[in-house]
């Protein structure tokens, strides 16, 4: 029966024809083996020809094959594209029984085929995901732990598109006592995704039990899972986390402090509790990760932790025996920042630390850092403050917790492959150590958010005019074609909130630094600030706004809740349009809508257009928190009282730069916002 399985160096037409004929053999094993042989022989030509008659023949005989044969047939069929919608639905209904097959391989192969066939019909794809819920859950309880792991990893994929899929079945993801650590960690990752108002108490109670697990990896994973849930339920989680500090165990305390650092960045309202909890942790902390986290927290909240200088003193006294470079760097920064807010208590120890770092330290990084701070202090306290005064996280960013549901196409290609099972960072994973926030802002961004916005505008004037003269080829081309080329927006590849935040802040930081090199780097990106007058969108429900935006393929990433001020929305999209004769050109646009409310007096600046008509510079509006400072001179300003019209400030950043696409995008956005506000009216 396996005679069909010879590999040939050259496809022999007679053999190939014979094999095609044998596809009609009554024995299903022969049929499947012919398929395999043809796939191998015709590898160069892309495998066996899958046309309509062959597809229908294979589908009709699917039931006769055993599990392995079915998987093979389903895999080969992935290349088939039905010609009509009717045919597609016929195939889907034929496959429906296999979708709920008790054999996980068949179920997975069928779903994979389903998702391929329904790529144009997202709703059908999502319905298929609902169908496989039961068999996947069964596989999660399989006696074989390897099978359990496979099912769990694939459930994580499904949850990216349907976050609510398993919500009611959260108890199935509670860890068994004897399960291996790799299953427990995956289950915890899934549990974090499933949290909702109904089950949060149960899930936290369960996770709390894992925190004292004998396996330290499991315990630490449980603690960071609690931190992940803390982004939405901060009070309950902090209560558990502070309780755990009482255990005074190294690995637990270290994980808790790291989790608190990550949490406090996203939820600044937790900072009071965290500051209280920090007292006395330093005795228990042993590993460098945990001590770095503690130092970071002391740097940011030093003025509120009364014992901070004493803690630092212990660290500084022991700096000679310190082996971790990371801890030393963090220690330098923390001491500098603490010096700024509590100079009397810290001056002496800062001197000692700088002396040590410059004179005795052998590591280049630490020494250079010491030199840098030393020179900075020479510039005077004002300058130092300007550079070091840490950027506090913006409380309105706290709503960045919810991930938008990704389209199925985002992960469909890795479904039923080994990829989801691989170790390493999983997107759905809550940050454990070295959280994205922390890594992103290391070295710390050095200006307060509102300041950044202010000075970025001024800087941009220069850089923009620089760029306007010597603008890159692509934008020149874009301008040359006076007729706007057809512009299309798309949501893929999806930008994760972390990635968005990174891009957004990176741009701002670049603008604040008048560094020639850095400007070079941002040559190929553009910024635009624009005011759209009229729309009262701040009163729209987030759902309708999101729906409207998605209709035109703009993804909204985060909102402030309606009726809060300042009201913000963060969004992104990809533009795509074809210049005549050129390859399709695509750019990434990230943007912010800001509405500061009627209660404030506003200073509005009219946009300045450069000669070639590119909208390069926008306007500035005084920031709510900045009081009534006048805006920089040299810009035409026109103050006006609150009219009936409201306006929304739009800040857009584009990469790579393509002005015509940016203009096109802005007009689409304006239309959407106007439509929304008129619907409301």
């Amino acid at each position, binding site marked *: 029966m396996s005679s069909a399985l010879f590999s040939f160096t050259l496809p022999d037409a007679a053999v190939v024809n014979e094999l095609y004929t044998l596809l009609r053999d009554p024995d299903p094993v022969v049929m499947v083996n012919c398929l395999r042989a043809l796939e191998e022989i015709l590898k160069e030509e892309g495998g066996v020809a899958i046309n309509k008659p062959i597809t229908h023949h294979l589908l009709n005989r699917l039931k006769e094959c055993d599990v392995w044969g079915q998987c093979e047939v389903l895999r080969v069929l992935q290349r088939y594209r039905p010609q009509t919608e009717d045919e597609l639905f016929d195939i889907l209904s034929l496959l429906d029984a296999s979708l709920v097959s008790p054999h996980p391989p068949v179920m997975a*192969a069928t779903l994979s085929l389903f998702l391929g066939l329904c790529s144009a019909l997202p709703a059908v794809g999502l319905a298929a995901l609902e169908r496989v819920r039961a068999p996947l859950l069964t596989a999660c309880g399989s006696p074989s732990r390897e099978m359990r792991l496979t099912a769990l990893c694939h459930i994580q994929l499904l949850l990216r598109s349907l976050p609510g899929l398993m919500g009611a079945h959260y108890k199935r993801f509670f860890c*068994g006592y004897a399960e291996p650590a790799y299953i427990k960690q995956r289950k915890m990752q899934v549990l974090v995704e499933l949290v909702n108002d109904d089950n949060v108490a149960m899930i936290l109670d369960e996770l709390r039990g894992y925190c004292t697990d004998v396996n330290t990896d499991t315990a630490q994973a449980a603690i960071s899972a609690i931190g992940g849930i803390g982004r939405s339920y901060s009070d309950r989680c902090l209560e558990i986390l502070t*309780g755990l500090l009482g255990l005074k165990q190294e690995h637990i305390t270290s994980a808790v402090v790291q989790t608190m650092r990550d949490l406090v960045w996203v939820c600044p309202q937790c900072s009071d509790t965290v500051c209280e909890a920090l007292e006395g942790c330093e005795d228990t902390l042993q590993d460098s990760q945990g001590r770095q986290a503690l130092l970071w927290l002391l740097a940011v909240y030093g003025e509120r932790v009364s014992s901070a200088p004493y803690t630092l003193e212990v660290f500084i006294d022991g700096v000679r025996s310190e082996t971790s470079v990371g801890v030393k760097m963090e220690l330098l920064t923390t001491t500098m920042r603490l010096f700024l807010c509590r100079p009397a208590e810290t001056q002496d120890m800062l001197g000692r630390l700088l002396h040590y770092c410059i004179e005795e330290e052998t590591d280049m990084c630490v020494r250079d850092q010491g030199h840098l701070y030393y020179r900075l202090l020479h510039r005077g306290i004002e300058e130092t403050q300007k550079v070091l005064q840490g950027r506090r996280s913006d409380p309105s960013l706290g709503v960045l917790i919810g991930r938008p549901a990704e389209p199925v196409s985002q992960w469909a290609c890795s479904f039923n492959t080994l990829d989801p*099972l691989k170790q390493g960072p999983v997107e759905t994973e809550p940050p454990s150590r070295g959280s994205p926030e922390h890594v992103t802002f290391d070295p710390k961004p050095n200006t307060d958010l509102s300041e950044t916005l202010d000075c970025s505008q001024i800087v941009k004037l220069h850089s923009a005019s620089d760029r306007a003269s010597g603008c890159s080829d692509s934008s020149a081309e874009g301008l040359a074609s006076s007729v706007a080329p057809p512009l299309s927006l798309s949501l893929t590849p999806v930008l994760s909130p972390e990635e968005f935040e990174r891009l957004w802040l990176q741009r701002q930081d670049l603008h604040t630094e008048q560094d020639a090199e850095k400007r070079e780097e941002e040559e190929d990106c553009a910024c635009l600030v624009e005011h759209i007058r009229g729309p009262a969108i701040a009163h729209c429900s987030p759902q309708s706004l999101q729906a409207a935006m998605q209709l035109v393929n703009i993804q909204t990433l985060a909102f402030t809740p309606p009726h809060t001020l300042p009201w913000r929305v963060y969004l992104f999209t990809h533009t795509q349009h074809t210049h005549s004769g050129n390859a399709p050109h695509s750019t990434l646009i990230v943007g912010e809508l800001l509405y500061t409310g009627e209660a404030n007096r506003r200073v509005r600046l009219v946009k300045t257009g450069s000669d070639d008509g590119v909208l390069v510079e926008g306007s500035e509006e005084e920031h709510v928190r900045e009081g009534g400072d006048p805006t920089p001179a040299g810009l035409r300003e026109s103050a006006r009282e609150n009219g009936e019209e409201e306006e929304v400030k739009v800040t857009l950043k584009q990469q790579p730069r393509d002005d015509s696409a940016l203009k096109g995008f802005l007009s689409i956005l304006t239309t959407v916002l106007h439509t929304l506000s008129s619907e409301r009216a």
Partner: protein
Amino acid sequence: MISQLFILSSKGDNLIYKDSSVRGEAGSDVINVFYEKVTALPGDQPPVVMNHGDLHFVHVRQGGLYWVATTTADSSPFSIIEFLNRLASLVKDYCGDLTEKAVQMNFALIYELLDEVVDYGYVQSMSSDVLKNFIQTEAVSPRPFSLFQLSNVGLFGAETQQSKVAPSSAASRPIQSSREQGGKSEIFVDVIERMSVVIGSNGVLMKADVEGEIKVKCYMPNCSEMRIGLNEEFSIGKSQLRGYGAAVRVDEVSFHQAVKLDEFDSSRILRLSPSQGEQTVMQYQLSDVLPSAPPFRLFPTIERDSGGKLLMYLKLRCDLPPKSAAINLCASIPVPKGSVSMSLELSSPDQSAELKLQSRSIEWTIPRFPGGTQLSALFKVEVPGLSPSSLMEVGPMVLNFELPKLTVSGLQVRFLRLSPVQPGPAQRWVRYVTHSDSYILRI
């Protein structure tokens, strides 16, 4: 598609190696590469999928052995893991047992199996019905002669009470020997349930899941059809209830594809033609609700005495029906870090307990625990520097046990009929057992 396939002992000895790649994707040192990767990791739980360049290893652990396949990144993990599991159970069917020794002694048989099962990395057939036509080698049984086996034989052949109960080892024998004259013609139907339960510190049932399966193990060469009758009031799902008696309800059921279900709806009968060896006929699940009280409850008192010792007074009650009993019960209770020694008082002499410093827990073993009774234990643990918050580290208690002759779901096999009617001494065994998958009692 599978490039290479090998079985390693837990110490890394190469037991079986088959290179099915004709394309030469990988060298022959894959075994060393794999074992180096496994040993480089701390702990005994290497990730299921590992890669070394373009080479991807997928492995399962069965019978203390590594069953490893190498493959490409785009192959289906479900298929490969299912294949390896199925291969392990085939080897178990043919060799009678799944140990390093059994695999070593039967390597010729296993290579013969592999030749039939995999061709050029493609799975051909794993059904024992097909394979029995091709496999010629006899299994070598590693089981030594044992006097205990004799205890089951009645005096002068008289039928004793004991001979009505099959020894638990009866089903672990190779299927091949059934072709021999000496092999008994037997069939085993096992109803096996695995229970995972979490009981809160206030005694409330927080989670209860039961996963069950009916396995048929057939050593009957000429059995064309068998019918298994389940409880008549067996119902599936939440809405459907049958009869007025104590209904046996499960949430989800799936059947082996060879099972014919034409009589299932009306009278709960499964029809199938069993193939030689073991197959899982039916799988079912029950979640969130147990039909009866959970089998064990714990009443703990944990305190710190004046001398700074940790006092744990534990009462464990077994709520099984009085005729049933749990066997091989082992309770493990985590104790605070830094515990050094323990003194104890147990309520009966057959129990034992010890402090395991390695796993930071007390292991309390109870060989037999009849239903409706209660046991208690007092542990005094010496923990230097015991702080009040250390009491948080005590618990939860985890129980491992086996409930013979009992299913928690209540599923029963009403009858087992074979056709054609077997000549001679055909033996039919129905066995029930419930295992604790994870039984956690919070403190």
